[in-house]
């Protein structure tokens, strides 16, 4: 059994001539909570849909639990819990009927756990799904996904529409699940504070590429934002690699660099800057930096 529960190899996807994914490579090991970040329309949902076999890739291959996504068997689906963006449930059904359908079609169903969740979320069973609020639909979707006791959970914006308390409940559920042996979670979210709390690794999608893919704790240590002041006007090119962003204004240069090390420090020092300070960055700051379009020079 491969250690990597999710594998994406050179994934390319075009939608009507537009390139949405441009060669994505990604591995999620067992037991990991992977947070996939990216702006709206960056392709997060597309990757997930391709992984689940809902959408065919243009080029490249993806694997879930050692099986190719285009050939996922029913048995494998029973090991995967999925919460789709927009909470894809059959809107016209009554909640009770939908639950029965999911239960009948499942291979293993933890009734006790499901009822406990329904009670915690206080979800009604006699209303139609379309009459529920977005938050309640989200919770229903979550409960249905968790009730099958899945090995792998894939969440696409799972906290959309959830109030603060419900969001916290969701996080606690996720933590509870991951503490059980051999479970893995892949989730996309816009709420960076949630990602920072529970993710082990994060990936950031921008312009069709995975610009970041590393353990979360390393991220803050690896990406640095520096404010460098030069005695005379700042040089246009520092000959540094892995520059994420660069802004020049007269003598001052603000530069965001990945994998800052002694080598880069030495190269910088050859330009004899008069001062160099680090600007602290939160996860949100880093996310914004990494998803900016191509860096521009601003001169005054």
């Amino acid at each position, binding site marked *: 059994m491969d250690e990597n529960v999710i594998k994406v190899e050179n994934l390319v996807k075009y939608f009507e001539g537009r390139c949405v994914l441009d060669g994505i490579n990604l591995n999620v090991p067992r037991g990991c909570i992977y947070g996939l970040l990216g702006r709206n329309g960056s392709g997060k949902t597309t990757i997930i849909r391709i992984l689940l076999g809902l959408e065919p890739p243009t080029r490249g291959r993806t694997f879930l639990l050692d099986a190719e996504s285009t050939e996922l068997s*029913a*048995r494998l*689906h029973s090991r995967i819990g*999925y919460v789709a963006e927009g909470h894809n449930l059959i809107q016209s059904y009554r909640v009770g009927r939908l639950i029965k*359908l999911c239960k009948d079609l499942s291979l293993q169903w933890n009734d006790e756990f499901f009822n406990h969740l329904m009670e915690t979320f206080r979800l009604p069973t006699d209303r139609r799904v379309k009459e529920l609020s977005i938050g309640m639909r989200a919770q229903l979707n979550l409960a249905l996904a968790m009730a*099958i006791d899945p090995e792998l959970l894939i969440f696409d914006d799972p906290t959309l529409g959830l109030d603060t308390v419900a969001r916290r409940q969701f996080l606690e559920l996720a933590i509870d699940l991951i503490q059980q042996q051999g479970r893995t979670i892949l989730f996309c979210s816009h709420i960076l504070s949630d990602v920072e709390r529970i993710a082990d690794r994060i990936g950031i999608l921008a312009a069709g590429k995975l610009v970041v893919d590393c353990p979360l704790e390393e991220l803050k240590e690896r990406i640095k934002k520096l404010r460098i002041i030069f005695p005379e006007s700042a040089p246009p090119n520092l000959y540094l690699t892995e520059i994420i962003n660069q802004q020049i204004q007269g003598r001052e240069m603000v530069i965001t660099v990945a994998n800052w090390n002694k080598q880069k420090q030495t190269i910088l020092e050859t330009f004899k800057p008069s001062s160099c300070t680090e600007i602290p960055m939160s996860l949100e700051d880093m996310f914004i930096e990494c998803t900016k379009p191509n860096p521009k020079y601003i001169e005054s």
Partner: protein
Amino acid sequence: MFALIKREIQDHIVYFIGAAVFSAVFIIMSISLIHQYDPKVPPVFSIGLGIPAVTIVIFGICAMGATQMYLDKTRKISALLSTLAVSRSRILLARIITGILAILILLVPQTIASGILLRIFTPPIPMFPGMVFEISLVVFLMAFACYCIGLQAGWNSNPLTPSLGALFLTCIFIPLILIKGFGVHIVVILVLFIAASLIRTWRTFMTTSL
């Protein structure tokens, strides 16, 4: 599998009720018509009723197939189902089985009733052994063919368009039957048509994005 079929039937119960009602009406009309049977009077009334009846049936069967696919797409039913512990092929198979069940509910009572009535009232109408079986088979295949047209087209369009198409195609098939008779040829043509249609539907359903 059973759960899938049950779901399809529940969602399209209208067609099942329609089929049962139509079947019952047909049997009652047949009985009353045979009571009034007079060899000297041309069967204008029967034909006058027969043609719109056949039209409704064709339209209805095709619409059922189209509706099944169309509702699936608009309500994103398969999109949800395929993430549960079922495969796409099973979803499609359940759908087709449901369609066949509806057709059978429509045709089987009529066939049995026709068989009984003909047995009672022959020999005014010439018969040869197996005639009922052959006619029933061709009728069933024709109905199934209409259903397949509905299935194929329903994924992308509303139920109306393919139904009209089916009507048009039947206008071709009925003269063909009248000319060639209910023979092996017709059966072969229909089977080939159905096979091609189903294969195409299968391919579309398996590879489409949900």
